[in-house]
């Protein structure tokens, strides 16, 4: 009886097993990468907006505080996008002829909402709350990046679960004094640069984080990484 397969088929079979493993892991890691890529998360991509509103201009240039526009961020779950009236506080007199601002003026005249494109959008099955983060000493910058350097708003972080958890597992690495929460230029303490809280000077984030964790009564890591914290 002649052989059905040539001898070389043995090598081929072995090679294809290996090939399969390689292919699967390649597909796997490609999906892994894809899932975290800007293509899926929208990270670092500024979507089109009805008005090219620049945080760089208004925050760094004019020194406006986040709360001038995002008024509810301290007391509620959502930060809120300012109504047209807030823009008109100033633009009733400034850049009154700029074509760029026509949608704002139109909205003010007609009472129709400006339709901003959401940049940060968690799935609806996730519960998120701004006020607790601010009150426990997490700065806007830790999540939104250097907003004062963004001519157009984009996503700084992926907002994926692993990102939330990377902080919930060790929040002490990110905590800052409450009065610095809105600052875009705050620097963590270092041997050359002390941060003062309640009369004590801290020279390392390790010490500061531990002290703030105590002071702001943070719950344990178990509590804030349990599924029902964010999925309720």
């Amino acid at each position: 009886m002649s052989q059905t397969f040539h001898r070389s088929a043995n090598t081929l079979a072995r090679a294809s097993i290996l090939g399969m493993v390689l292919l699967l892991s390649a597909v796997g890691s490609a999906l892994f990468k894809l899932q975290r890529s800007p293509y899926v998360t929208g990270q670092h991509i500024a979507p089109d907006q009805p008005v090219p509103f620049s945080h760089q201009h208004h925050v760094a240039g004019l020194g406006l505080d986040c709360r001038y526009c995002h008024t509810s961020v301290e007391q509620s779950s959502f930060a809120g996008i300012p109504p047209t009236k807030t823009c008109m506080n100033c633009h009733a007199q400034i850049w009154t002829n700029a074509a760029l601002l026509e949608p704002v003026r139109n909205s003010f005249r007609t009472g129709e909402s400006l339709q901003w494109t959401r940049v940060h959008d968690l799935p609806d099955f996730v519960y998120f709350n701004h006020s607790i983060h601010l009150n426990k000493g997490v700065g806007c910058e830790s999540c939104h990046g250097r907003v004062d350097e963004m001519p157009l708003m984009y996503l700084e972080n992926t907002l994926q679960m692993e990102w939330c958890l990377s902080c919930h597992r060790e929040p002490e690495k990110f905590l800052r004094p409450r009065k610095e929460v809105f600052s875009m230029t705050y620097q963590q303490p270092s041997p050359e640069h002390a941060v003062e809280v309640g009369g004590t000077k801290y020279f390392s984030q390790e010490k500061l984080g531990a002290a703030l964790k105590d002071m702001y009564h943070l719950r344990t890591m178990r509590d804030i990484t349990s599924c029902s914290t964010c999925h309720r």
Partner: protein
Amino acid sequence: MALLGLAVVCVLSAAGCRQDMQDQPKFIPLRSNDFYADHRSARDPLPGTVPWTKTPLNEDVYFFSGKRGNAFGNDLPANIKFDRALLARGQDRYNIYCTPCHSVVGDGNGMIVQRGYRRPPSLHDPRLRNAPLGYFFDVMSNGLGAMPDYASQIKPEDRWAITAYIRALQLSQNARESDMAAQDKATPGPSDIRMPDTSATPQKPGAPATMPQGGKQ
């Protein structure tokens, strides 16, 4: 190969099917929706709705208007306690909402004014130093001339805190040596800001004659 294909299809379709729980048909703040003609999820209260607040609207007119009858009062409403915390809160809020135009010291040379906004009068103008507290509350609540109103951005409690802080700012910029406490004189430094005791001298009906034309007397 078929298995692999199946696996890939499964993974890809799982990745593609996630939208149901992602975008649930519920209202969340500021989300647009097609049910209402104006596409807003956030609804205005129906006409005639009576607000439920800690201080009922009709019982504490002064708290919500800064006025008794037709005259501005020169004291804080009963439910606002004057203390350091109030001044600190006022300073905080003033720095957020007022400094863009009035500047940190209140001289009216804020950043937005430098970019072309109409220049407001200095808060240390004698006319404004003599204006009753209720007047400042009213300007914030209703605006005045080129000054926009802040009723939707600042809660009434906070408007009163800002009012108290403005008075403190006015006093601090015009302090005389005799205002300083003895220990501060010995070691010059920021002295405690004290408020004039307004409760002892009942306000005459009607605001001072120096009231700006914008004020409704």
